[in-house]
């Protein structure tokens, strides 16, 4: 009984050291001052212009940008909050829970509209709608679905087109997927019918938006549900192969959020970085796929930053939701 525990303890630091990052990049390696460690779920390609603009402004600061999944961010950060200075994630619920649990530093000097921040410690800086992305070729000669109902009808009418060619998040692995799914389910029962139909057609499950968009582009998928449209922006040139649909029945918009770790050793630089994020500088300059800025007009469809986001993180609730979801989408 004891040996495995000891073995685990010995291996753990090695594991921590050998953390598998999806991506890891050092900006401004010649910086003389602090090096900010930013834990993020956003692809480096999307985020790089923002960081480059930041280090250009403050040449003494370096940035180590660490990319991993939202769920992994939550786990890593809780294990060692002092190891990271800023946390950026698309999983609003996990971010809010971290802030609620006291992991986020209060930045009283940062001015931000109240609907886009929580407790002056968690700050939203993008508004990104969940989209249905289709491969236009597959819908040739047919109406492009505008709502979830349309989509259900089309999948029922033409199962042969969709079978094994539709994708969505594996919400057991993806924090953002789980957030979109729970907000969908909260908004309408339609979600469950959609999942059942998709399950019946052998839906493919993905960890990330990027992979889904790749498969859409290559033709392996004809439709992906609840994808981050912003990620596909580069391939969404007018007249291109892909088309993004924002369902008109009930759109759902996520806000990417950032906070400064309460245990940061560089609160000044970290606060500066958050302020830079909120200013929107570098957000669109030169990026292939710019992050959509906050937009107070779309507030109605935006997921509200409030403690209620923790509801679906409750163990019992999550277990129940996942069971229901599995029952719907993984049909044996």
């Amino acid at each position, binding site marked *: 009984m004891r040996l495995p525990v000891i073995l685990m303890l010995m291996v753990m630091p090695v594991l921590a050291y050998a953390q598998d990052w999806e991506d890891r990049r050092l900006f401004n390696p010649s910086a003389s001052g602090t090096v900010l460690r930013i834990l993020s779920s956003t692809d480096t390609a999307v985020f790089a212009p923002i960081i480059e603009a930041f280090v250009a402004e403050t040449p003494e600061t370096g940035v180590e940008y660490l990319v991993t999944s939202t769920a992994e961010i939550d786990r890593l950060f809780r294990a060692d909050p002092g190891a990271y200075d800023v946390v950026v994630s698309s999983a609003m619920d996990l971010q809010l829970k971290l802030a*609620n*649990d*006291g992991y986020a530093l209060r930045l009283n000097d940062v001015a931000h509209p*109240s609907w886009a921040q*929580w*407790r*002056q410690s968690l700050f939203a800086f993008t508004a990104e709608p969940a989209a249905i992305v289709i491969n236009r070729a597959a819908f040739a000669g047919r109406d492009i679905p505008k709502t979830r109902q349309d989509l259900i009808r089309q999948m029922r009418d033409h199962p042969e087109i969709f079978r094994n060619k539709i994708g969505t998040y594996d919400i057991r692995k993806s924090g953002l997927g789980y957030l979109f799914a729970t907000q969908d389910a*909260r908004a309408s029962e339609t979600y469950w019918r959609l999942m059942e139909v998709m399950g019946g057609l052998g839906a493919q499950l993905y960890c990330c938006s990027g992979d889904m968009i790749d498969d859409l582009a290559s033709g392996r998928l004809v439709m992906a549900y609840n994808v981050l449209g912003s990620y596909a922006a580069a391939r969404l040139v007018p007249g291109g192969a892909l088309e993004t649909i924002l369902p008109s029945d009930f759109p759902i918009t996520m806000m990417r959020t950032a906070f400064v770790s309460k245990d940061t050793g560089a609160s000044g630089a970290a606060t500066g970085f958050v302020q830079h994020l909120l200013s929107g500088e570098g957000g669109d300059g030169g990026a292939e796929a710019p992050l959509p800025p906050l937009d107070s007009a779309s507030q109605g469809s935006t997921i*509200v930053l*409030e*403690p*209620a*986001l*923790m*509801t*679906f993180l*409750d*163990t*019992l*609730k999550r277990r*129940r939701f996942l069971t229901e979801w599995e029952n719907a989408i993984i049909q044996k």
Partner: protein
Amino acid sequence: MARLPVSGSLRNQLVVSLIGGAALLALLLFLVTRNFAAQVAQEGQDSILGAAAASILDAAAIHDGQVEIDLPYASFSMLANASDDRVFYAIYRDDTFLSGYEGLDAPANQADGQPTFQSTEFNGADVRVVTDTRTLIGADDRTQIRIVLAQTQDQLAGTLERISRNAALLGAGFFALAALLSFWATSTTIGQLKTLTQSVTRRGPQDLSAFRKPVPTEMAPLVTSLNSLMGRLDQSLRQSEDFIAEAAHRVRTPLATVRAHAEATLQRVDKAENRQALRAMVRAIDESSRAASQLLDHAMITVRADHLTLQDVDLAELVGDLVQRLTPVADMKDLDLAFQAEGAVPILGDPVQIQNAVRNLIDNALKYAPPESTVEIAVWRGPRPNVTIQDRGPGFPLHEMDTLTARFKRGRNAEGTIGSGLGLTIAHDVAAAHDGALTLENREGGGACVCLSF
């Protein structure tokens, strides 16, 4: 007049006690308002917490012995507020932790649906905790679900701060108003005293009549005793004046009788030594008589100095009368009285006293001037109305001039003349009682010059 010893100030006492009271009341008002508002605010938070806890318990169900709690999104949603208060919760089944925040626990000591509230600390923050329970009845067992729901109190603290500020403003406003009112009340009260003081001060020196103007009830006893004091004063003053007049009469009459007897006896006695003794006796009687009458005059001016019967008098006329009356006396001494006046010289004074003073001065001139000389008496109008009496006698002894006005003080040159040393004292006191002055000078070419000015 000597300064009255003063102990404290009524106005200050009043102001201090009124303002102190107002401050105390304001503080009380502040505390009560704030406490009450704090209680109401806390009740507000409690009722939301209670409702949220109830909605969570509502979502609990038991299926085949398995507890399911479909946490409603609205439960936490209703706890959202402008201050973004943090929320913690824990769900227990028969005291076994099910989900939420481990370590958050508080006992529920009441029946189902009866939330218990308490303030405590969790996760480094002050929180308000509600605990509520619900008993689920399954197919063949009962189980108790307990929800512990906590929320930080930032919003409440903000509300409290706002309330405190408003309550403080209210208290300060109340205090300011009360202070103003107390100043007003004090000055009105003290004003009554001032009015009385003024009407006492403004009175004429002879006015010892009672105060008749209405005064506040509280001041009535003071005014009554003041009136009775003045009554007694008036009476005793009158008594002492009567006594002096009586005494003068009583002393002088028998002395006159004794002198008459002595003179008569002198006519009948032939023996030189007896005549000598009798003459000494007459002289002693004259001294006593003079002393008695001077003493009485002096006593009169002393008693009346503070309340002269002031009236408009013509100084020229007054002195003229006196000169006329004294002319026979001067004639007896072969002295000439020359009177001169600048027309009428009106002054405000006590004619009896002024005559007394001037008579004493003329007396002196008659007494100390050599026969066959002239005594010049003049009344001038300005710069201050004055009377001067000049003679050609020996003048005042130089080194004694400063002290001659003192009581019973006589000069060296007065040896052998009858006198008491009170004449100049009386003249000086009369001058002082009229805010005037008596000046003594020696004339060039010999003689005294006395000036009584008003």
